[in-house]
C-alpha cells in the first residue's frame, strides 16, 4: 500500500481536458481519477491555476 501526497482537484470535464493538455507540456498530474477528479503535485497548484485561468480567459470576449 502506498500513500502519495498531493492535491485533489474537483472540476468539470471541460476543465479536466484543458488540464490534460497542459500536462502534456509540463507534467504535474499524479493520477487521473475520473471525469471530475484529478490528483496533482502540491507544488504545482498555483502555477496550474494561473495557466488555467489564462487559458479560460481566451474564451471570453468583452464589448469594450
Amino acid at each position, binding site marked *: 500500500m502506498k500513500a502519495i501526497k498531493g492535491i*485533489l482537484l474537483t472540476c468539470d470535464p471541460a476543465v479536466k481536458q484543458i488540464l490534460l493538455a497542459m500536462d502534456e507540456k509540463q507534467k504535474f498530474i*499524479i493520477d487521473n481519477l475520473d471525469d471530475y477528479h484529478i490528483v496533482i503535485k502540491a507544488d504545482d497548484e498555483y502555477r496550474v491555476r494561473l495557466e488555467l485561468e489564462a487559458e479560460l480567459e481566451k474564451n471570453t470576449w468583452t464589448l469594450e
Partner: protein
Amino acid sequence: MPVAVAQDETKDVKKEHVLLPFLQTQSQNTLTRLYQRPSSCLSIFRLLSALERQIIMNLLWLESAISVSTMAAWVVREARPLYDNALATLARLHILPQSTVKLALNPTFKTSFRQALTGGGTSSSFGVPAGEGHDKAQDGIPTDRDGRKDDKRNAPSLNTLDSYAIERWETILHYMVGSGNGRRPPEPSPGVRFLLKTSGLMNEFHGSLQISSTGFQFLLHSPHEQLWHLLLQYLHLAEQRRMDLVDVLSFLFMLSTMELGREYTVANLTKTQSAMLEDLRDYGLIWQRKQSSRRFSPTRLSTTLTSCSPSLPNATGTSSGPQEGFIVLETNYRIYAYTDNPLQTAVLGLFASLKCRFPNLVIGSITRESVKKALSNGITADQIIAYLITHAHPNMRKNNPMLPVTVQDQIRLWELEKNRLKSQEGYLYTAFASQADYELVLNYAKELDVVLWENAAKRCFFGSAEGHSNIKGFIERRTMGQK
C-alpha cells in the same frame, strides 16, 4: 396566542439580532446586573423576535408562576418547535429560566421591565436630561467658565446632529472604501482605525491599513447592521480591556432609549461610561459641543440602535444621497444610480465599472471584469444582488422580479466560473494488497470522516491532510500486529 403567533412567526423570517448571541455567552451574573436597569430590559425586549416578545408580555404581569403545561396548551402542534425555540432563547438570556414545572420571568428582569413600561423608580437608567432640576443640584459645584457657558447654550438642532452623525459615519466607511483603490480619504481617529483593524475589516499592509474581504462585505450591509457589527467588536474589545461589560452595555442601551435632539448630563455616568464618550463620539453616536462639555446628545445612529427605523436620516440638505432606492438596473447590464453621495458611488464602484458622472446621476455597467474584481475581493454574487435589491429605485420595485433575471443569473454564472476548480490537500492511498485491506483502511478513514474521494474498482481513495497521521498510525499498528 396559539395560531396567530404561529403565522406571525413564519412570516418573520428575519434572523435573530447579532447582539443576542453575544448576550447569551455572558454569565447569569452579568445579565442579571444588566437587567437591573429598566432601559436595558426595554432595549433587549425590542431586539427579540415577535414570539419571544409575546411570551414575555404574557408572563410579565402575572404575580405567580404559571405551570409549563398550561402555557404549552396554548400552542398548536405545528408551532411547537417555534415555541420551544423561543423558550430556549429566553432561557439562554436568563430572562425565563428553564424549568419543567413552572414558568416565571427572572424577578430582576420582571421588576425592571415593569418599571420601564410604567415609569417610576429612580434608577435614571434612561439618562438624565441636562438643564432640568439635576443641573441645579450641580450649581453648587464650581465649574470652569467654559462649562458654564456651555450650559447656557441651547440643545443642538436635529440637523446639526444628523449631519454630524453622517459625517462621522461616512468618514469611517470612506476610509475603508478609499483604502482599496489607492486614494487617501481623511483618516478617522486612531481609536476607530484600531477597531477596524482588530475586527478584521481591515488588515495592516506595508504600514497602512487595507480593506479585507470581510470589509468589502461589510460595506454592502445596511448602516444598522454595520453599526452593530462595529459595536460588537467594541464589546469584545471592552472585555479585553477589562472594562465593565454591564456598564458598557447599559450605556449603549441607555443611548438607544434616549430622545433625539435632547441634551443629557454626564454627571450620572460611571467612569467606564465617561471613557466611552470619546469612542462613541468618534463613531458618530454621540455629539458633544466640546470634549470637556458636561453634556452630550445622542445622534440618530444611537437612538435607533434597537428600533427598526433607519439609522441615518433620509432628510436632504446633507451630503448624503437618498436613503431609499436609487439604483436602476437594465437588462443590458447598464446601471443608473441617482445619487450625489461619493460614498454610495464608491461602493457601487466595487462591483460596477462607472462610465459617467453627473451632478445627481452616475452611469455605469456591470461587466465581467468589474464583477470578477469584486469576487476576487471576497464579495459574493449574492451580496451584490442583495445590495442591488435593497437599493433598487422605487420604479424598479414595480418590476417582477425586481432585477432583470439575465443580469442576476449572469452575476451568479461569473461567480461559478471563478470556482471551476476546487482543490483539497491530502493523500492518495493506492496499491492496497487485497480488497480486504482496502476496505479496512477505507472504513477507518470513513469513521474519521476524512475521505474526499473513493473508487472501489481502482482500490484507491483520497483522504484529507488532517486524517493522514491517524491513517498512517492505523496502518502501522496493523502491520506491527501482523508481525
